[in-house]
């Protein structure tokens, strides 16, 4: 019996630091908490580097530019290199302007359902707009306040034919990376460095 008690003590001693660690590490983050945290941001400016991997391309295409956000529904992605292209969403309107190719088009976001889903993934996450996200995606959140990952899977089967998943990761109220996995096997990774206003 003594041996038994010793063993138990050993187990407790060995286990203690682990348990202590668990108690000290931050609690897992819920989707609601994440959304509240993100929603606290009024405006944000960021630089981004986006790498587009595609089987159609000899080498990955790297885009650089800026992202701008004004709560709740203005998002602008401005590609500065290797060409000049601006995609802005303001309310329900989508403006696409490529200065290099001298093209400009405005349309209702809702006019292109797949595109709307992709744009909402960024806008609604940045705005902490849970209902909007849930309209398009099944959500899964991992990690804690200091380091989280939000995975979005399209609900609409037609969008799912093109896009497998989107993964947004960040720290606190900052979004640091967006990865898009496509059904074609292509993927793009956008690294973001945000400054909040």
């Amino acid at each position: 019996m003594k041996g038994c008690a010793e063993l138990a003590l050993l187990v407790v001693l060995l286990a203690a630091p682990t348990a202590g660690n668990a108690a000290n590490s931050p609690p897992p983050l819920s989707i609601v908490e994440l959304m509240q945290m993100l929603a606290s941001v009024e405006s944000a400016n960021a630089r981004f580097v986006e790498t587009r991997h595609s089987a159609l391309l000899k080498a990955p295409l790297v885009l650089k530019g800026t992202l701008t956000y004004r709560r709740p529904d203005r998002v602008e992605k401005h590609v500065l290199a290797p060409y000049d292209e601006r995609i802005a969403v303001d309310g329900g309107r989508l403006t696409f302007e490529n200065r290099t190719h001298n093209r400009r088009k405005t349309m209702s976001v809702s006019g292109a359902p797949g595109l709307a889903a992709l744009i909402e993934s960024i806008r609604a996450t940045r705005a902490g707009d849970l209902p909007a996200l849930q309209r398009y995606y099944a959500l899964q959140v991992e990690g804690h306040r200091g380091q989280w990952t939000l995975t979005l899977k399209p609900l609409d089967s037609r969008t799912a034919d093109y896009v497998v998943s989107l993964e947004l990761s960040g720290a606190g109220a900052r979004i640091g990376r967006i990865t898009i996995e496509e059904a074609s096997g292509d993927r793009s990774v956008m690294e973001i460095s945000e400054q909040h206003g």
Partner: protein
Amino acid sequence: MSMPPRAALAAWLVLVALCSGWLYRNLSIGTDLTVFLPPSTNSAQRMLVSQLRDGVASRLILIALEGEEPPALVQASRELARGLRASGQFGFINDGDLASAVKERELLLAYRYLMSPAVTAERFTVAGLSAALSESLALLASPAGPFIRKILPSDPTGESRHIVEFLVPDTGPEIRDGVWFSRDGTRALLIAETRAAGFDIDGQAMAIKAIRDALQATGATRVRLLLSGPGVFASEARATIQSEAQWLAAAAMGLVMLILFAVYRAPGPMVFSVLPVATGMLAGIAAVSWVFGPVHGITLGFGATLIGEAVDYPSFAYIQAARGERLADTVVRIGPTLRLAVLTTVLGASAMALSSFQGLAQLGLLTIVGVGAAGLVTRWVLPAITPANAVSRKVYAFPIDARGAMTIARRGRWIAAASIVAGLAGVAWHHDRLWDDDLANLSPLSEAAKSLDRTLRAELGAPDFRYLVIARGRDRESALEASEAAGAWLRETVGRGWIAGYDLPSNYLPSRKTQQSRRAALPDATTLARNLDLALRDVPFREGVFAPFLEAVERARTGPLLTIEDLRGSGFELKVNTLLVASEDGWAALAPLRGVSRPTELAAAARAAGHELLDLKTESNHLVNSYRNESLQLIALGLLCIAGLLAWGLRSVVEAARVLAPVLAALILDVAILLSWGHRLSLFNLVALLLVVGIGLNYALFFNRPVADPDEQQRTLLSLVVCGATTLSAFGCLAFSRTPVLHAIGVTVALGAVLSFVMSAVLSTRETRRGAT
């Protein structure tokens, strides 16, 4: 003038047999609108008419689903669209979901190098390809990338994209989860284009039933269905008119029978009273069918109204019969008056029978023959078949002594004069708001239905089909070429912001010339491969990725041109067939315009550029206008003839004036009162006023008829009161109709009958009876 009763009876039976026989073998009822249009219209009006009958506009059904949460509506909308496509009754279903337009997408892809307006020789040079490829690269890296990724290897120059941009307006309705929605998100919206033409009311009714069935099949029981569009209106109007006409006719019949029974106190005379008008209707329809062929439905409806005064003839005869007097003697006694009553109507209608509008001419003929036959039956057949004592139980005198009222009435002349002056002043005051020229208002639509249509049309951005640009050609091909030329001009006007968009047949089926020049712009396989290789130096696409592109271009270059046969079964086929129509001198391509914001500038620019712009509303107003002007002239001519006939028949101009004055006064007051109620006069009112003239003249003639003794005066007064009461009940019932046509006729005639009665009592009653009273 005498005819043995048997001969009269035999003649009548032969007439009825002949008419019935003719109608049994030959009667066909037409619903073709064109019968009611003037034959000598210009080509714009002919275009209007053909558009009204079977144009695109007439085939559109606007559908809204509401009453559920948006996800349920999205679901219902998709399933409804699928069900409707499967029903085969529709050429085109659009719920905003491009992905579901499989057939159309396949066509666009297969024929993209022949359909895309962006295809030029420059586009396939090294420079052109290089520009197109770098643009495609940017698109691949954009948020749209995942969605164009699949098609990029076979369409790097984005031709299918260009065609879609060209065909699908940017200004469509809101889209939620891929389905059209109203801005407030409460209604899912769809457009369906029926295969049945707009004038084919049975076909439209079947299409509407298919929509209801398809929605039911989706199992979405809580979703409410709203429908609008010309076909919906037409079939609903028909259903409403049928059901209303049935119970209104039953109510009117009941009231009339009640009045007649109260007077005759026996069923016999009530049955005989129907014979003249029934014979008249039969003979009238047979005559129209004999002369014109198909009898229009409208002729039947209005004809029944116009010969409505014939219902009064037997009442005049039966009620005026003195105690113990044979009916044959009564009709001889009142014969001259009855003859004038019939002849005035026949003469009035003769003017109408001369109309260049076949519809009016049909109405005129029906009235002449119908009223004439009814008069003859009353004069000759009724005495022959009415048993001697059939009317012996009737009321002979007014239950209350009305002579006092008559005396007062005669003293009321100055009141009558004052009210006529007031009426004239009222008409003059409204002279600029007298007529309702809007063809839309001739349609029996409720205001609620109209407002739903406006809302849905605005939400859907559906063309209201008021403005059309017409491009003409000798044959289909040259009309398509003209359509392309008009397209170039229309693009400019869109750029100027005068119109929001347009549709053209050449968008779906480019002319052979254009297709050939696009095909000629495609380089051969070797040249294209070399150009592509050189272009690929500047962009990071992998080599060999675009093999499908090279194959597709070579296929298009060596393949056949796109023809109407290739479009078969797709929505594009119906588009082309409805937008490219055969006209009297060749073919015409029609371009319905959307969102016209500057009609004046547009019209001027169209004239300057040599394009034909048709404003259907203006044209239809012209049409209604010319229709009305002709009707008015004919009515005026009819009245003149009537005045002449009265002067001849009564052997005195003064007498004629005494008879005509109350009728004219009643017309003026009728119109003035309608106007003061905020009505505007339409063709329906005009037809109704013609009946008022007929009825009013009868009243005035009988009031004015010299009578031998107070008893006869009593009987005359009684017969007039009975006739007035039956007319008032019959048309008073009609006035309760929710259908504008029936309501307008009902109100106008009921009001006119009362006014004619009062005015005749006041103005036509003979004062020579002073000694007798």
